[in-house]
């Protein structure tokens, strides 16, 4: 007991012997919200703390997705984020799920929110956690390959407000403000943003292709210690780049999206019981105009296309955790209702009304997870999750099961994580009900994977190696349709390929912490994608990241080089970005940032025209991330 008292005394004496400024810095570091929210055993984790986001001058989520392990940031034909993009699908990243605090941001048709939020401005976000490689089922109703968790700023850490304005290349500009406070146990956060993103234009076939977008956003939350109400509204309007149709270069494309999310989260019984409710309403208006008619089926050529898509989703999620000896058992019952309507389509020619095979989907989900702490160094996670996708009319229900086994070893320096998983992904509505290529008989695509992560930490360095192997089958691809509905179908349909695809990947990372505020990060990533099918190309890709963050006096300096090599659609390129932030005073900061400064980043090639035999005859190639310079200022009050 005397030893204990002695250690306590030394600890307390040392702590109180430090200067007040050093203690404040230590306190700031220790209190990072990511330390409270992140779950190391939930998967292969990448954390961007508030300090990282601020010093890297992260303006939008794509600023961090562009250097994500194994992926290269890409966008779909409408200029929307789609990091697993498979041309000419409108969206392929259904398994990449985005959460804001406790709630998933999604669109009912695509099943994932990355399409709307993958390039969201980050000015109201405190920190980001990205779980790669089939993470824990604890996160949500449906399975995922990658989970992006965004956490908003809180009244507890941000009492007061901030106004911010930026001006960038081509006249891009952004203005936003937030204010937050806590009074009598009730905290609130209010944020409003106006963002006008302007990009370069691209001449093709005598037309001008554009990707400009204006976005207005409101986010507000009201909470007590155990309950929180959130409202998130977004209105976005601009160009839809190439549009979703293949066959002719559009003269003009427009997209307008309204998104509303109302959600509540509640904690009971010392946080062991959690209830989350969320309602989402989205509407999309698309307009395409063509000088040269686009052939949408063997019998139909059109010059105008107007579509209104309406979507709703309601999610209820109840989770209970029990601590029994060295077991932490968590179970969750979850329900999601989706409603969608794609039938409101108008062309410049009359066609029979479009029929949609189903309008509603009910998803019932149940998961059980047991975390067994064998001792203070060894942790085992066992998880099982079951989903039932129930459809109306004569469309068959889909029943899928997920398994996951995790083992984590940790001591003061070494951490080893091993994850084995088998997951199934039900086809999302846009692949089954699309009048252009939908197939109601699609099967769930399945993935089996093993992932090993090993990291070694010293006071000045963090070294990490990640190895992964996976097999997948029933991947949906576009194939010739033997019985096409000739009104809108060009002769292609989505179908599962029965051959297996294997994936090998490896990543090595090294972080050198020069001092409290300076660090160098190095990453090398390798991905081998081998296909036994002629329909999917095999590929080997590499990407490398060198990132340096420095603070000198009142300057925060950021340098980042991302090198892409071997990506089949994006090719080879490098993206060098740099930025400087200067603290004019404690409350007034200015910053300047250059993105893809040498205009040498990756490019994406989009299919524009296909001949009658299905051969690609024309492509549109544009930079994924354009060269852009931004000047900004922010005032805190």
């Amino acid at each position, binding site marked *: *007991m005397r*030893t*204990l008292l002695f*250690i*306590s005394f030394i*600890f*307390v004496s040392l*702590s*109180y012997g*430090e*200067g*007040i*400024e050093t*203690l*404040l810095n*230590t*306190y*700031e570091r*220790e*209190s990072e919200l990511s*330390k409270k929210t992140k779950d190391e055993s939930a998967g292969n984790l990448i954390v961007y703390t*508030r300090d990282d986001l*601020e010093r890297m001058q992260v303006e939008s989520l794509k600023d961090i997705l562009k250097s994500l392990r194994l992926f290269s940031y890409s966008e779909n034909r409408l200029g929307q984020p789609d990091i697993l993009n498979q041309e000419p699908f409108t969206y392929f990243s259904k398994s990449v799920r985005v959460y804001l605090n406790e709630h998933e941001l999604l669109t009912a048709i695509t099943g994932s929110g990355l399409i709307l939020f993958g390039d969201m401005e980050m000015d109201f976000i*405190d920190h980001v956690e990205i779980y790669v490689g089939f993470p824990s089922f604890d996160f949500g109703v449906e399975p995922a390959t990658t989970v992006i968790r965004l956490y908003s*700023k809180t009244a*507890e*850490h*941000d*009492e*007061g407000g*901030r106004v911010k304005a930026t001006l960038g290349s081509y006249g891009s500009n952004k203005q936003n403000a937030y204010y937050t*406070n*806590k*009074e*009598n*146990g009730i905290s609130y956060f209010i944020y409003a943003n106006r963002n006008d993103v302007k990009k370069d234009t691209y001449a093709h076939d005598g037309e001008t292709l554009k990707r400009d977008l204006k976005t207005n956003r409101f986010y507000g939350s009201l909470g007590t210690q155990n309950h929180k109400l959130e409202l998130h509204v977004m209105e976005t309007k601009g160009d839809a780049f190439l549009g979703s149709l293949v066959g002719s270069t559009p003269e003009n494309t427009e997209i307008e999206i309204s998104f509303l999310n109302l959600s509540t989260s509640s904690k009971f019984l010392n946080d062991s019981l959690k209830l989350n409710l969320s309602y989402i309403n989205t509407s999309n208006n698309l307009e395409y105009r063509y000088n040269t008619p686009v052939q949408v089926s063997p019998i139909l050529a059109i010059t105008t296309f107007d579509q209104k898509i309406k979507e709703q989703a309601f999610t209820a999620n109840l989770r209970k955790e029990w601590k029994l000896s060295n077991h932490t058992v968590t179970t969750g019952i979850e329900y999601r209702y989706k409603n969608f309507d794609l039938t409101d389509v108008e062309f410049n020619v009359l066609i029979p009304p479009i029929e949609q095979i189903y309008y509603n989907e009910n998803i019932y989900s149940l998961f059980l997870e047991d975390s067994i702490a064998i001792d*203070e160094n060894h942790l085992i996670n066992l998880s099982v999750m079951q989903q039932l996708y129930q459809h109306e009319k004569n469309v068959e229900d889909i029943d899928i099961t997920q398994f996951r086994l995790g083992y984590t070893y940790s001591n003061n320096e070494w951490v080893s994580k091993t994850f084995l998983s088998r997951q199934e992904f039900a086809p999302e509505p846009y692949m089954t009900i699309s009048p252009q290529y939908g197939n109601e008989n699609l099967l769930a695509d399945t993935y089996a994977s093993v992932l090993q992560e090993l990291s070694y930490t010293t006071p000045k360095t963090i070294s990490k190696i990640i190895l992964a192997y996976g097999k997948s089958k029933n991947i949906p691809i576009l194939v010739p349709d033997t019985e096409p509905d000739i009104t809108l179908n060009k002769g292609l349909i989505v179908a599962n390929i029965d051959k297996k695809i294997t994936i090998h990947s490896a990543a090595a990372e090294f972080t050198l912490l020069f001092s409290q505020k300076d660090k160098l990060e190095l990453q090398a990533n390798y991905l081998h994608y081998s296909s036994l099918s002629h329909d999917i190309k095999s590929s080997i890709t590499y990407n490398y990241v060198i990132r340096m963050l420095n603070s000198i006096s009142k300057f925060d300096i950021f340098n980042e080089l991302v090198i892409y090599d071997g990506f089949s659609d994006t090719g080879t390129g490098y993206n060098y970005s740099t930025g400087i932030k200067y603290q004019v005073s404690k*409350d007034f900061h200015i910053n300047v940032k250059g993105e893809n400064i040498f205009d040498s980043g990756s490019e994406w090639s989009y299919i524009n025209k296909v001949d009658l035999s299905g051969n690609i005859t024309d492509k549109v190639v544009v930079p994924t991330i354009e060269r852009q310079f931004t000047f900004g200022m922010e005032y*805190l009050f």
Partner: protein
Amino acid sequence: MIKAIILCFLITTVYAGDDKTASAIFNMITKSITKKSHATVYLHTQVNALEKHPGNLQIIKDCKKADLLIVSTMDKIPKECQQKIIFGTRYSHLKNSNVVGAFFWQKGRPNILFYEKRLKKKNIKLAPSFEKYIEK
């Protein structure tokens, strides 16, 4: 047994890192205000870090006997203690002229702020290391 207790203590220390550091900061501030190594402090109503880790402070339940009041809310401070030295934990507490200073989160960072006039009124002279946190 001693080994097990030490282990428990170390694990608790790691998990409660930010509370312990917050407590160390409150201890330094209190010592600088009261000039006492073991000052008596009344907590109104909930200051988690000090409840868990009082350090050298003596937490008491009678505010009249306290050298310092550390408050998490300005509501319902006992009338008889409203003229005592009060230290806040939110920026908004500084709106009350009886509060000499506060240790609070703002703009994502922890801050300490004292008002010189209020310190003088209470005849408080802080240690030189706190000079940069005094607004004149």
